[in-house]
């Protein structure tokens, strides 16, 4: 094998994820794509939509007035939302009626109706954010292709949080006092799937502070939080390591304890927990996470990788400390692994 082939193969290996997200991730992604297409189509079909809304029998027995399709309001103010379920494709794609009704009859539902078209169109209003999320989770589980269109899906007026929290694809958190080493929670990674949106949601209640309310502006040690959105540029949120207001684009905000704690916990989640400070002391020149991913998630994988590259391996227990290594010169041809129960918590070179 040529040197170039070896490098390319190692690159491919390095970028190959060890965990494959569940196929449901792709299904949900497709549902979102279809939803957006339908939403775009709906904008172009205002007249058709208005006609739909004008016929009470289509959406709810006895309803004489339907919720407004007015301009979106900040999600912090949205306590109820009108949903429309559309089905596309042939009959084979449709979920069972009982499953649809199970979602439509969940707590918080009101104004439930059906449009007698083929395929049918359902409408429902859900009140309460938890209830809205529960409904969205319910329809996401319905088998086959379908569209769960949120008629009102507002952007958030907090400048550091683009779009809607449920649409945020990942959150990236860096800590200045840790060499600006970053950690990313991604919706594409299964264990992190359910953590991104709640963390983003925790920021929507942020309150902008008047200048006289800002008594501390020290951000010398801070987390930089960036919520990524597929189509909306994200602003950086500077969250002090200790207490104090967050800063976004030169403006100061008071965020909830839930938001601040969420960021700290996300940053401290394994493979970082308990070893970040330790290894930073030992080999602070390195970037722990990428190398840990590179060498392998288990001690056996890491040893194989090291052997392929002619590196020696030094294994430390997670709680062992590494004082003996602080005195050694950097740059030795060695990979250091911090291992617990066979899993690589951290890897560094030294």
């Amino acid at each position, binding site marked *: 094998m040529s*040197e*170039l082939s070896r490098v390319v193969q190692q690159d*491919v290996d390095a970028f*190959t994820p060890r965990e*494959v997200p569940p*196929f449901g*991730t792709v299904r949900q992604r497709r549902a979102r*794509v279809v939803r957006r297409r339908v939403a775009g189509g709906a904008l172009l079909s205002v007249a058709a939509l208005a006609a739909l809304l004008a016929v009470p029998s289509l959406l709810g027995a006895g309803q004489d007035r339907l919720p407004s399709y007015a301009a979106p309001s900040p999600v912090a103010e949205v306590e109820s939302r009108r949903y429309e379920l559309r089905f596309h494709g042939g009959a084979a794609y449709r979920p069972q009626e009982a499953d649809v009704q199970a979602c439509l009859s969940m707590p918080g539902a009101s104004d439930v109706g059906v449009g007698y078209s083929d395929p049918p169109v359902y409408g429902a209003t859900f009140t309460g954010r938890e209830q809205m999320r529960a409904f969205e989770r319910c329809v996401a589980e319905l088998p086959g292709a379908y569209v769960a269109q949120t008629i009102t899906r507002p952007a958030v007026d907090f400048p550091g949080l683009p779009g809607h929290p449920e649409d945020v694809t990942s959150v990236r958190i860096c800590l200045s006092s840790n060499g600006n080493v970053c950690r990313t929670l991604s919706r594409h990674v299964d264990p992190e799937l359910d953590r991104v949106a709640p963390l983003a949601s925790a920021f929507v209640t942020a309150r902008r502070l008047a200048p006289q309310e800002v008594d501390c502006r020290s951000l010398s040690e801070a987390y930089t939080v960036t919520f990524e959105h597929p189509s909306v540029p994200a602003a*950086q949120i500077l969250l002090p390591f200790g207490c104090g207001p967050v800063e976004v684009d030169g403006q100061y905000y008071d965020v909830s304890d839930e938001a601040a704690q969420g960021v700290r916990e996300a940053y401290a989640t394994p493979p970082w927990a308990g070893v970040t400070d330790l290894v930073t002391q030992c080999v602070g020149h390195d970037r722990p996470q*990428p190398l840990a991913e590179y060498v392998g998630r288990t001690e056996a994988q890491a040893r194989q990788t090291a052997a392929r590259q002619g590196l020696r391996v030094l294994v430390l227990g997670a709680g062992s400390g590494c004082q003996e290594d602080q005195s050694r010169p950097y740059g030795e041809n060695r990979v250091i692994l911090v291992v617990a129960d066979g899993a690589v918590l951290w890897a560094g070179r030294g």
Partner: protein
Amino acid sequence: VTGDDDLALQELYASCYARLVGVVGAITRDRHEAEEAVQDAFVRLMGQWKKVAHYDDPEAWLRKVALGFVSNRRRKALNGIRAALRHGPQPDAPAPTGDEVDVRRALAGLPRHQREVVVLHELGLDTAAIAQQLGIATGTVKSRLARARAALSPLLREDVNDHV
């Protein structure tokens, strides 16, 4: 998508998702972008499965679509520049080690259109297959390979002419 189709899709997904992300990631140097592109490719596949299922190599179709998504995204240069300004250097890039440092750096420094032909070529695709994969002429593949190898040649030990 029928039950059988759904099962086949899931099997294909389980068998080649990670490999596709690895290849696309090696080209883009960004795993997040690679995962986005590959997942988008599977989303498109779900809509075209009845056709693609009969292809000899659905994985090649997925790779082509994923690389197409990457190209489309790259065209939105402004967004990319914004992202780069926001994030600085990509931390997901694997740490280079030992003798491969220079080769890897040089490979990463190639223009993406050259890097993608090198990666695909080193993964075993011939120039015709690469051309078909990327939707470009065979001659273009050869010229890009030649230019890439010329850039890399001072760092490579073997006779690079053996490969083109």
